């Protein structure tokens, strides 16, 4: 599941965005970038959980259904993240199409 290392790169990218934003305008805790970062970290955490469960199953520590549940949670949260991403991208494209 090394594909998910993309998350860490996304996480690196987002703080740079919020750092370039006007400093006085927004509190650090409430910016959209931070919220997105938190959400992505949660999704990443669920992916890591599913990986742990998988390892536990292979070491005969956890049950088959626990592995399936962890995978399901990871899948659902990943799909939710993709929906949010699609919304962001479409909003961005909408703005870029604005006639000046």
């Amino acid at each position: 599941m090394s594909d998910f290392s993309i998350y860490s790169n996304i996480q690196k990218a987002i703080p740079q965005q919020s750092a370039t934003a006007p400093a006085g305008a927004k509190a650090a805790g409430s910016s959209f970038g931070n919220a997105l970062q938190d959400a992505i970290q949660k999704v990443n955490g669920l992916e890591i959980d599913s990986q742990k469960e998988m390892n536990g199953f292979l070491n005969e520590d956890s049950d088959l259904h626990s592995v399936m549940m962890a995978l399901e949670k990871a899948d659902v949260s990943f799909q939710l993240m993709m929906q949010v991403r699609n919304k962001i991208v479409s909003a961005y494209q909408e703005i870029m199409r604005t006639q000046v």
Partner: protein
Amino acid sequence: MSLFTALDINTSGLTAQRRRFEITSSNLNNAETTRTFEGGPYRRKDVVFQNTAFGSALMAADGGGEGVEVGAVLEDFTTPFEMRYEPAHPDADPVSGYVSFPNVNTSEEMINMMSAARSYEANIAAISILKTMINRTLELGR
């Protein structure tokens, strides 16, 4: 995430039913066991389920959202051992010639096993319905 509380509750049910299945299998397999580490024949075991608190503090305040777990595995001391007259058996009583066989009723254990399997299936069905609900909700964004 509260989205997954129902999933967690169903997972606890799956774990508990699987444990029950294990204990029933153990009873069924030891229906003829006359020697144990503790001495004497095998004694049939029963699982006792108990509820567990699950989910957020808000849900606990409502009194809802409880999972299940195996609270204890208890041995059955009520049902007597089955006495069979087999003087040639190595574990037979030298005086009377009777052998104590485990207090396992095979048909009862089969019923227990089917009940555990059905409960497991019911949990699986609940999970797939929940999955459909979540997927339909995600389709709102498309």
